[in-house]
């Protein structure tokens, strides 16, 4: 992609399309500067701006907005501050996969404000990402009485599904979704996507697909729902549908990865260029010292580059940071491909201790067992 620098041939050549809403953001920032007129900005104003950027970063899955949010909070970045500020910093750190630093912000926040639903929810999410099921469940239980019932139900169900209660969790989510027609869009997408993931892990592919479709009806370009749905399609050998689903969604690495896998499986002409674009992104991330993409990079190396040994070491590195079902499946698949069944041991222990139900992981474990005893 990176060619030699050039001088565009004419003035009307469009070099860059800015994200929509750039002008609004600029006004917001200029107003902020004008309002402060030399004085320092108040923390409340700064948090308002930072919150706006974090929301954009989340919907767009665009790391630059998290940087802008951090800049808005810069004068208070290294100060204790109120719970709301700490939660915001934790949110930024969590996006960058600095989980321990994020938890270190949330703990004091929850000490000063134990009814902070955002803090408990974020706490639960981070514990869950790290595979700490009981800590995550405890945090979810704190969420229930203080927020929208659908938020609490989704939190509890996602954690429950990781600890051998997949069927009950799915039922809980289904009934919560039926009752929560008034819940806001972002919560409903999250709930539907979580339900889809639970059903997919139970092997109920049709139910999973229906749930993902519900999520995408609410917001058709939701990165997380698109990624989860694409994974279901890839697992059920429907790669061609992934090509259609994601063709206009390639900004987020997670989606570009699924598109590249689908292109490879369908022998699409785009397979080569997509692979190279992803490789360049991982390279750029590595150059800046960014390790937030280990999961994607390991999967890329395994499924597109077929370099099992490298993929295994990436998957192992990723497992040190993240313990979700996807991370477990990845390490199992990499250990299988690299013919190093002993490398899968930490995942086998984890599956045993959590009691997670996951048909795909179970299938990989069976293959690993068969390989280990020829």
């Amino acid at each position, binding site marked *: 992609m990176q*060619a030699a620098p050039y001088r565009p041939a004419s003035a009307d050549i469009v070099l860059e399309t800015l*994200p929509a809403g750039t002008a609004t953001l600029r006004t917001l920032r200029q107003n902020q500067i004008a309002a402060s007129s030399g004085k320092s900005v108040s923390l409340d104003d700064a948090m308002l701006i930072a919150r706006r950027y974090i929301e954009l970063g989340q919907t767009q899955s665009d790391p630059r907005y998290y940087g802008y949010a951090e800049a808005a909070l810069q004068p208070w970045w290294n100060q204790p501050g109120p719970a709301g500020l700490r939660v915001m910093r934790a949110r930024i750190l969590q996006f960058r996969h600095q989980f321990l630093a994020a938890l270190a912000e949330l703990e004091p926040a929850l000490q000063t404000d134990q009814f902070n639903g955002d803090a408990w929810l974020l706490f639960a999410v981070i514990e869950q990402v790290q595979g700490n099921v009981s800590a995550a469940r405890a945090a979810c239980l704190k969420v229930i009485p203080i927020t929208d019932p659908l938020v609490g139900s989704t939190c509890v169900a996602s954690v429950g599904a990781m600890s051998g209660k997949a069927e009950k969790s799915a039922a809980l989510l289904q009934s919560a979704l039926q009752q929560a027609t008034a819940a806001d*869009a972002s919560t409903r997408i999250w709930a539907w996507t979580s339900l889809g993931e639970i059903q997919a892990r139970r092997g109920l592919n049709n139910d999973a697909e229906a749930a993902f479709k519900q999520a995408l009806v609410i917001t058709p370009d939701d990165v997380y729902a698109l990624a989860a749905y694409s994974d279901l399609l890839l697992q059920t050998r429907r790669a061609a549908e992934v090509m259609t689903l994601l063709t206009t969604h390639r900004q987020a690495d997670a989606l570009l990865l699924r598109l590249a896998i689908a292109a490879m499986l369908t022998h699409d002409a785009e397979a080569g260029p997509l692979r190279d674009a992803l490789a360049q992104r991982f390279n750029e991330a590595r150059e800046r010292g960014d390790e937030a993409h280990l999961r994607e990079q390991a999967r890329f190396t395994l499924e597109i580059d077929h370099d099992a040994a490298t993929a295994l070491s990436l998957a192992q590195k990723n497992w040190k940071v993240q313990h979700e079902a996807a991370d477990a499946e990845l390490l199992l698949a990499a250990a299988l491909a690299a013919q190093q069944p002993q490398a899968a041991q930490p995942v086998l222990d984890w599956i045993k201790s959590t009691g997670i139900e996951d048909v795909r992981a179970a299938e990989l474990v069976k293959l690993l067992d068969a390989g280990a005893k020829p």
Partner: protein
Amino acid sequence: MRFRWRRFSVLLIAAVALFCGVDAQAHKPSDSYLNLHVENGQHDLQGQWDVALRDLDLVLTLDTNTDNQITWGELSPREKEIETYVFAHLQISADEVACPIMPTELLVDSHSDGTYAVLKFSAHCAAPPKSPPKSLSVHYGLLFDLDPSHRGLLNLSAGAITQSAVFAPEQAEITFDLAASSLWRQLLQYIVEGIWHIWLGFDHILFLISLLLPAVLIRERGRWVAASRLGAAVGHVIGVVTAFTVAHSLTLSLAVLGVISLPSRLVESLIAFSVVLAALNNVWPLVTRRAWLIAFFFGLIHGFGFASALNDLGLPKQALALSLFGFNVGVEIGQLAIVSVVVPLAFLLRRTGFYRRGVLVAGSLLIALVALGWLIERAFNISLFAQL
């Protein structure tokens, strides 16, 4: 699972509505790419700085007509302003004397997350005229105030050495050692790696030994005869070693430069196969006078093996030639060390039955057996020796 910021959901929905436009570019954190180049012994350095248009727009509002698009017509008239802004955030000094920066040209280029302004410049380091600068300091402060997660990725090439560094808010100034010693240090490091690789890579050693063992003998009418003069033996050895060296240097370079690539399992299997053949050739000779041909042909394969070892070390992009050269020199040194031990010993023992039967025949059979084991392991991806 992802965190949902539900308390502000009204804003969130508004934001989603705002952002339904599709752009084809990737999302990544903000980076700029700064390349500095200084020729050995020169006082001037040439620079190129790629800064994302999206980042510049944040400060300078390049999208003058607010249609969310930046055209060349909007960008090029702002050249002076852009240069003034960015170069106010970059200071270069040599031996603690500032090097004034002179912008030369504004171009554009695309990176994975969009189009970047490419600012070409030169910097004149007015160090004392008698000696070229010994150290170079770069202070970088672009965009950190607007985005603390911004990083400046610096690539500095000074003569043959390349150094890279990442600027961050907590690391805004970096000093580089330009003294020639660092070049030597880097070269030396790769020479040592090359020596290690040949000494630790038993397959290369056994291949070479298999080809060298018969060098002190001459095959006449189906029988081995001791070479009468050391000269004849040395001629044979030089032929074999030169052929092996030329061949593996060739493929090593081609593979490292990315011209050719072979799957590593195939390469490793072929290397094992080459050892089997070379050893068996000593027991049942097929090729005797032209052993250099075997050395050349399989040397091509061994070169790919060296390349994967070198790649595993992680190669500096710009100092590729230097590291390649150093590694190759290291491999030759390691190889010559083996030759200088094996050949004199073999020459002294060449008339003995112990050498002809015990070393040449039994030794070669043993080598062939070990290499066959490797071949099976590598070709079928199983572990034989681990169980022993």
